[in-house]
């Protein structure tokens, strides 16, 4: 049995260096240095609006930094052109917080369009494989339905299924359990755990402490555009940083 490398030995798969980003007057990220290790399940946490989505979208080139550098596997991301970015996103796939399913297609077609484009399959072949993918996640029944007929939780699962059709090595999930009932949230957590155990690097934006405890290898805690903690999970829960402690305890008073 070959042991997987310990956390200290794992390489960073993605890094941001001195990242700054502002939208008009609003300075969202004010100097962020973070690296995400390969094969880890990293949670990006913090109160709403601190820039978690903005940070993570830089990794797939959906946003370009004002200042700073973004690396994926030691290659600069922020200077890539659109065509190269498309290639990157096949390996590192970002799933939006809102389901963003294509409502002009059925659920099955939402997944099969990805297969059609990237594996040059015919429509029938792609549809068949899409159905298999959906069934693996327990969503097979929804195949012929329109996205609007599904609950939010189900839509989120479909959007993840759609992303998984690319077979990426890194999956970024933006607040996957927000707005879900506890049962659906648990199912999603299980999926995240399973994918990570299968070798996929997971980056999850979430403020769900239960999920963090259960799944995270590492935690990145953002507050007002700056990183307050970045490291293994036990250290996060035991941190002496007042902001982190406040967040962990769910207290109302304080910086957060």
């Amino acid at each position, binding site marked *: 049995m070959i042991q997987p490398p310990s956390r200290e030995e794992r390489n960073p798969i993605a890094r941001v260096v001195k990242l700054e980003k502002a939208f008009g007057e609003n300075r969202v990220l004010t100097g962020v240095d973070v690296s995400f290790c390969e094969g880890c399940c990293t949670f990006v946490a913090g109160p709403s609006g601190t820039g978690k989505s903005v940070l993570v979208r830089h990794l797939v080139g959906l946003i370009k930094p004002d200042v700073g550098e973004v690396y994926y596997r030691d290659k600069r991301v922020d200077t890539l052109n659109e065509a190269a970015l*498309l290639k990157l*996103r096949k390996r590192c796939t970002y799933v*939006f917080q809102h389901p*963003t399913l*294509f409502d002009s297609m059925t659920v099955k077609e939402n997944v099969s369009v990805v297969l*059609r*484009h990237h594996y040059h399959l015919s429509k029938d072949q792609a549809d068949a494989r899409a159905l298999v993918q959906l069934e693996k996640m327990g969503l097979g029944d929804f195949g012929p339905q329109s996205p609007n007929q599904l609950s939010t939780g189900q839509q989120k699962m479909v*959007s993840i299924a759609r*992303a998984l059709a690319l077979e990426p090595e890194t999956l970024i999930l933006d607040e996957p359990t927000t707005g879900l009932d506890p049962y659906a949230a648990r199912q999603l957590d299980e999926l995240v755990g399973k994918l990570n155990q299968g070798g996929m690097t997971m980056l999850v934006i979430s403020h769900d402490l239960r999920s963090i405890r259960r799944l995270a290898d590492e935690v990145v805690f953002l507050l007002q555009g700056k990183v307050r903690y970045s490291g293994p999970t036990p250290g996060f829960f035991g941190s002496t940083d007042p902001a982190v402690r406040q967040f962990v305890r769910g207290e109302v008073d304080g910086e957060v």
Partner: protein
Amino acid sequence: MQWVSSIGKGTLDITELIGGLFLTLARVLRSLVPPRFDTYELRRQLYIIGVRSIPIVILTAFVVGIIMVVQTATYVHKTGATGFAAAVGGVAVLSEIGPALIGIMFSGRVGANATAEFGTMVVSEQVDALKALAIDPMRFLVVPRFVAIVVSLVLLTVIGDVFGILGGMATSHFVLHIDWQSFVNALLESELLDELLVGLIKAATFGVVISVVSTTYGFGVKGGARGVGRAVNGCVVTTALGIFMLDYVITYLWFLWGG
């Protein structure tokens, strides 16, 4: 002096718009070579855009044929030149009114629709989702529609020409009591093929205009429902302007070239 600044702003807006239009055109053309676009989507759009527009084109063309002949009735009664009625009716439909009016009706149905669809997708982040899934929105959304629009409009214009002439013939015969035999003869004597050809060139050009304008407005939507409404409005206005401008330019060049 406020009107000066608003003219200045208006000019800047127009240049920005024209720039955007040419940029879209360039990107569409670049995505056509090599022609790697979604053929399933192309077939789907050919059906939605082409086949489903047939009824409205037939109706418009037929009605326009009626109008053309009715309007020339005065000259016929004055001069007894039934041939003239046929010539004007037929020829005008083929090379002029046909492409322009069918283009306008088509731009309403297809162009406005495309802007609305693209705009809604932008607002609901579906376009970003495509990019995040490593699918190029140009090749997936825009290019299939571009090809479908141009091909459909050319074919629909042919269909429209036929029905326009039929409408004119019917009116000549039933309402104006002009023998339709002489109508057909006069029609055949005029240079039909030439006029048909310029009509088709116009149709193809209008198709390009409709596609480029609707794409530019659609992807530029900002601001939710209100933004979509504004984009559709801007799209149809710009398309109409573009169609008539190019109509004139093509007509002028055609005659210059000895058509």
